[in-house]
C-alpha cells in the first residue's frame, strides 16, 4: 500500500486559501483517478477537485466548511501497490472549470504542508508515492529540480545537487534556508568541491615507496605551493607553445654601449630587461595575451603587470613589475634588479608578488636552447627565454645575396592557454615582440 496526499489546490493567482464546501466521498470509499473527490469555493471559483490517484479515501483532514491555505493537506488516499498510476504532468488536478493558470506548479503527491520560513521542518525521506516504479521520476523529484533562481544560483556556486537536499517548501521544494543549511552542514562534502583556482592545496600527489637509503624530505611551504600550482595549471589550462627565434645582435650592441652608463646609475642592464620592455610595449596591443579566464568569461586586464620568475636556492618566486608598460628601459631594468635582489634577500612584500597579468621566465642563463614553461595561473600566457648565444645564421644583404653570418641568437617560447588564446593571437604577439627586439630603437636605451 502507498499513501498519496491530497492538497488544497491554488485556484487563481491571487487566491491564498480555499473553503472545502463538500466532500463527495466518504472515508473508506474507493475512488478512481480523476474522479471528483471534493468541492471547494474560493473568492473566484467554485470547483470539483478530482482525485490525484486511484485508491481508497483513507483519511479526511479538513472538514466541510473549513477554510484552509492553499497546499494544505486535506486528505490521504491509499493506493494498491502498483495501482497508483505514475503522476502525469500533462494532467494536473485542475478542475474542468476554467481557472487562471496557477503560478505555482502543483503536484499530485506532494509531501509538504505549508511551513513558515521560521519553522522549516526537518529533513524528509525522499519517499516515492508507489514502490516499484523505480526509474520514473516522482513528482516530488521533478519539483525539487524545478527550483527558484536563487536556489539554482547557490547550487551552481557550491556544485550541490539540488535533488539530494530535503526540501521544506511547498511540495518539497528546496528553499533558500534548506540549501544554505545543507551547505553549512556539509562544507567538505564531495558533492561540493571548491574551485581549483581557489583551492590549489586540494591537489593530491600520489604516494611512492621510498627505497632503502633514499632520503625523504617533506616539502617546504614554497615547494608545496609550487607543486600544487603547477599541477593545477596543467589541469586547468589548455597549454600550447609557440617558438620564435630572435636575432639579438642589435640588442647585444645596444646593451654593450649602454651597459657602462647604466652601471654608473646602479642598474645592471640585461637581455631580460629588453625582452620585458618589448613584451610590455606589445601587451596592450594584444589584450588577449594580457588576460585571465574566469568561469566562462575572459577578463581583459586593464593594467600590464609583468611577473619575472626568479630562481632561488629554495624554490621559485614570481615578483611583479607593476604598470610595466609605463616604464622606460632603465625603469624596467631597475625593477628587475630590485625585485630579484629582494627575492634573494627575502624582502619581498606581499604586494610584490600579486596582480601579475603576464609572466616571463628566463632560464637562458643556465644554457637551454628553449623550454616550455607552465602558465602562471590565472594568467593565460608565459614567455620562456632560451640561451642567447652566437650562432651561424643565413642573412640577406640588401643586394639580395645571401651568406652565413655570426649572429647573436636566442629562442623565445610562449606557452599560452588555448581556451582563449588562439595560435594566431599568440604568434602575432610574438612576431611584434620579435620585431621590436630586432629593430630596438636606439633612443629608447
Amino acid at each position, binding site marked *: 500500500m502507498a499513501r498519496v496526499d491530497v492538497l488544497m489546490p491554488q485556484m487563481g493567482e491571487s487566491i*491564498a486559501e480555499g473553503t472545502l464546501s463538500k466532500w463527495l466521498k466518504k472515508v473508506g470509499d474507493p475512488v478512481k483517478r480523476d474522479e471528483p473527490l471534493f468541492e471547494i469555493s474560493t473568492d473566484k471559483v467554485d470547483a470539483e477537485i478530482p482525485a490525484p490517484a486511484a485508491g481508497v479515501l483513507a483519511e479526511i483532514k479538513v472538514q466541510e466548511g473549513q477554510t484552509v491555505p492553499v497546499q494544505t493537506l486535506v486528505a490521504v488516499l491509499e493506493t494498491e501497490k502498483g495501482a497508483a498510476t505514475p503522476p502525469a504532468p500533462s494532467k494536473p488536478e485542475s478542475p474542468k472549470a476554467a481557472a487562471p493558470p496557477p503560478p505555482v506548479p502543483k503536484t499530485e503527491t506532494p509531501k509538504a504542508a505549508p511551513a513558515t520560513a521560521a519553522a522549516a521542518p526537518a529533513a524528509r525521506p525522499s519517499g516515492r508515492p508507489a514502490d516499484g516504479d523505480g526509474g520514473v521520476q516522482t513528482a516530488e523529484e521533478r519539483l525539487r529540480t524545478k527550483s*527558484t*533562481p*536563487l536556489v539554482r544560483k547557490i547550487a551552481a556556486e557550491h556544485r550541490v545537487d539540488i535533488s539530494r537536499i530535503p526540501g521544506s517548501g*511547498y511540495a518539497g521544494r528546496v528553499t533558500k534556508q534548506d540549501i544554505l543549511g545543507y551547505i553549512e552542514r556539509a562544507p567538505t562534502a564531495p558533492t561540493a568541491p571548491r574551485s581549483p583556482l581557489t583551492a590549489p592545496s586540494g591537489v593530491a600527489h600520489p604516494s611512492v615507496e621510498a627505497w632503502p637509503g633514499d632520503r625523504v624530505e617533506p616539502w617546504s611551504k614554497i615547494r608545496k605551493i609550487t607543486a600544487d600550482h603547477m599541477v593545477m595549471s596543467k589541469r586547468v589550462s589548455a597549454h600550447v607553445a609557440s617558438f620564435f627565434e630572435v636575432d639579438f645582435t642589435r640588442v647585444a650592441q645596444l646593451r654593450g654601449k649602454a651597459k657602462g652608463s647604466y652601471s654608473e646609475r646602479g642598474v645592471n642592464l640585461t637581455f631580460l630587461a629588453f625582452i620585458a620592455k618589448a613584451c610590455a610595449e606589445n601587451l596592450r596591443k594584444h589584450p588577449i595575451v594580457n588576460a585571465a579566464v574566469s568561469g566562462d568569461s575572459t577578463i581583459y586586464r586593464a593594467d600590464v603587470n609583468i611577473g619575472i620568475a626568479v630562481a632561488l636556492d629554495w624554490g621559485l618566486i614570481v615578483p611583479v613589475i607593476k604598470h610595466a608598460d609605463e616604464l622606460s628601459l632603465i625603469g624596467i631594468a631597475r625593477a628587475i634588479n630590485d625585485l630579484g635582489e629582494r627575492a634573494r634577500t627575502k624582502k619581498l612584500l606581499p604586494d610584490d608578488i600579486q596582480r601579475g597579468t603576464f609572466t616571463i621566465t628566463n632560464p637562458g642563463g643556465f644554457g637551454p636552447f628553449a623550454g616550455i614553461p607552465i602558465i602562471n595561473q590565472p594568467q593565460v600566457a608565459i614567455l620562456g627565454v632560451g640561451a642567447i648565444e652566437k650562432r651561424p645564421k643565413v642573412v640577406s644583404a640588401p643586394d639580395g645575396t645571401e651568406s652565413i653570418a655570426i649572429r647573436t641568437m636566442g629562442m623565445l617560447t610562449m606557452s599560452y592557454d588555448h581556451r582563449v588564446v588562439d595560435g594566431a593571437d599568440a604568434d602575432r604577439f610574438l612576431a611584434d615582440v620579435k620585431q621590436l627586439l630586432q629593430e630596438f630603437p636606439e633612443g629608447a636605451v
Partner: protein
Amino acid sequence: MAEVTFLEALRQGLWEEMERDDRVFILGEDVGLYGGAFKVTEGFTKRFGESRVIDTPISEAAIVGAAAGAAHMGLRPVAEMQFIDFISCAYDMLTNYVATARYRAGLSTPMVVRGPCGGYVRGGPFHSQNPEAAFLHTPGLKIVYPATARDAKGLIKSSIRDEDPVLYLEHKWLYRRIKEQLPEGEEILTPIGQARIAREGKHLSIISYGATLWKSLEAAEQLEKADGVSVEVLDLRTLLPMDDAAIVATVRKTNKVLIVHEDTRTGGIAGEIAARINEQAFEWLDGPIMRVTAHDVPLPYAPTLEDFVLPQTEDIVKAARWLAAY
C-alpha cells in the same frame, strides 16, 4: 518637537515654501476663501493674499494650463486638484504639454500638481482613485506619494523646489490618521527618487507606498508575532523616478517580494516593479514576485464591497504567509 498630522505637515510645508520664496503660489478650486475641501490651505489667503492663493473656475485643464504658463514665466505654482480623480480632465495638458515642454521647447516647467487620492473612506468611484499608473508611463513627469507626515512635508518642499513638473499624491485616509512628532524650526526636505526602509526584516520584503504602506506594516507586525516571519517593508515614496537600487537591495537581502498597492491590478505599478526585479535581480529570487492590489473594478460605494475590493491587512498577511512558506 510637536505632534502633527499628515495634513498639518503638508500645510506646514506649503506655508514654509511660500514664506521662503515669493514666486510660490497656489491655485485651485476653493483653495482661497474656503481654505480647500480638506482645509489644507486654510488661512493662506489671509497671510499671503488673493494674488498668491487663487480660486479658479472648475476646470482642471485650465488650472494646470495656467500653472504651466506661470512656471514658464519664472513662478513656482502649486496646483490643487480638489480630488485627484479629476486630474484626468487635465490629462492632455499634463502629458502632451507639461511633460514634453522641456523636450520640445527647452522650457523649464517647475510646477506641482497635488491632490487628495485614495480610498478606504467610502468615497465611491469618483473620489477614491489612485491615478499614478496613468502618469508613470509619461516621460517628463515626476511622481511622489508620501506615506508619513515627515515625508508629506519633506516631499512637498522638495517638489516645489524641483525644476521639473511633479505630481504629488496625498492619501486622504492618511490626512488625519497619521500623526508624527516633527522637529520645529528644522528644515525637512525629503529627496525625490529615494525609497526608505520602513521596517527591517530578513525573510520577505513588502514593497509599498501610500496608505497600503501602513497596512503592510500592520501585516508585518502580525506575521512577526504569529509566524515568526521577519518582514522588511520598503516605502517607495517616489514612484517616478523609481529607486531601483533600494528595490534590488531589499530583494538581495530577503529574496522574496510582495508588492502591495491600492491601485487596481492590471497595468498597476506592481507590474513595473516586478519587471525591474526580473531584469536586475532574477538570480536573487527565492519565490515568485507576488502582488496584493485592488481588484480590477471601479471602486464601489457600499462599505462591504469597498472592503472587498481594496487590499486589506488580512490579504497582505495571507499572501505574505504563502510566499514565506514557498
